[in-house]
């Protein structure tokens, strides 16, 4: 078992127990933090947009073209990722992400 750290939109940092094989979006949603995940993890909506802490960026698989296309539909930063496209493995123990703001 391991954990991920998630900073919510109020700036509060939560430490969540992670589950191997779950998408980071699913872990965040399961713990009840406000992440929409409208399309259910199909990489079709970008409502699970997060900012990944710099030191973790290189440890993730790079985004697919499909994920880049979806990131085109939100206001990104260089460390933007879709959390439904990050599969949690023990190597990601301690992963640090921040929930991106939601539009109106």
């Amino acid at each position, binding site marked *: 078992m391991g954990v991920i750290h998630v900073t919510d939109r109020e700036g509060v940092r939560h430490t969540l127990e992670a589950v191997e094989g779950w998408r980071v979006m699913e872990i965040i949603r399961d713990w009840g933090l406000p992440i929409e995940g*409208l*399309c259910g993890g199909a990489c079709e909506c970008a409502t699970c947009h997060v900012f990944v802490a710099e030191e973790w960026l290189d440890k993730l698989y790079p985004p697919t073209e499909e994920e880049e296309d979806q990131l*085109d*539909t939100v*206001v990104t930063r260089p460390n933007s990722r879709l959390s439904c496209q990050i599969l949690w493995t023990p190597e990601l123990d301690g992963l640090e992400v921040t929930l991106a703001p*939601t539009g109106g």
Partner: protein
Amino acid sequence: MTDNIETDVVIIGAGPVGLFAVFELGLLDIKCHLIDILPKIGGQCAELYPEKPIYDIPGFPMVTGQGLVDNLMAQIEPFHPSFHLNEMVESVEPLGTPEAPLFRVKTDAGTTFTCKALIIAAGGGSFLPKKPPIDNIEAYEGTGVFYAVRHMHMFKDKKVLIVGGGDSALDWTVNLQPLAKRLTLLHRRDVFRAAPHTVEKMRSLVAASEMDLHLGQVVELKGEAPLLESVVIRRDDNTTFEVECDVMLPFFGLTMKLGPIADWGLNLRENLIPVDTEKFETSVPGIFAIGDINTYPGKLKLILSGFHEGALAAQKVHRYVYPEKKLLFQYTTSSSSLQKKLGVAA
């Protein structure tokens, strides 16, 4: 005064669950009209993932979102449902009693319906343009910020900033460029997911200095609201610059919002509509909610759950539409009367 449409049932949402409800209602001789905010039939299946394979529809080892919609359309064809696309239901007014419900339903296009039951199969809500999270953007909406182009002439001789990299952004870039005083396209990266000839056209306009292309993200709107004067753009390296513009058109695709449903007097829980699991009726008799938009203990947001919910809701709807008739439960495999309705009777 527009003509009022009288029907048994109005279904809000033409996604898979709304479509299958037509079938279940049709078997019970109940007529319906469907309303959807999208210009096409199929809801999320058609809008978000038409090409994505789905593996958990009973009887289909694999079917794409669009394939499922096409099959459902073929399945409900015998019942000739009427579709009202590109319309959003704005208001629902109760006219009847709990025992004999009657509703007046009105859309934003001015269409009105009178119906004995209303089925909300609206999934995640209404598809609406995704708004970028920029401070105070609401203050400029309708004057300096537009999420759609209704009349091109509104942008004549204006300094126009288009944001996005998909088909809408690129199409409007090449269409508005000849009209605008100056057109700027802003996107987060130098890759565009749009028709290649449109991208090429944009590139040639940039090469000829007839428009500008910038890479970055809008982080601030400037100007005495509601008048937009310029936007601040952040590059990937965190430096910023300003672009003057009278109007900004963000084309970030669609998202789903509950919208006017919140104002119809229904009990809601976290943007979902609680229902019972016998009839899938809401807190208002005669209004049902099926599919992703409802909630009850054990709810699973699966298309197959929505199909089941529609079948059960139809039984109760029958009592409202035909209060005098006893409902006989029948199978399509053996009932000649059902087969007749389906147009397959021997």
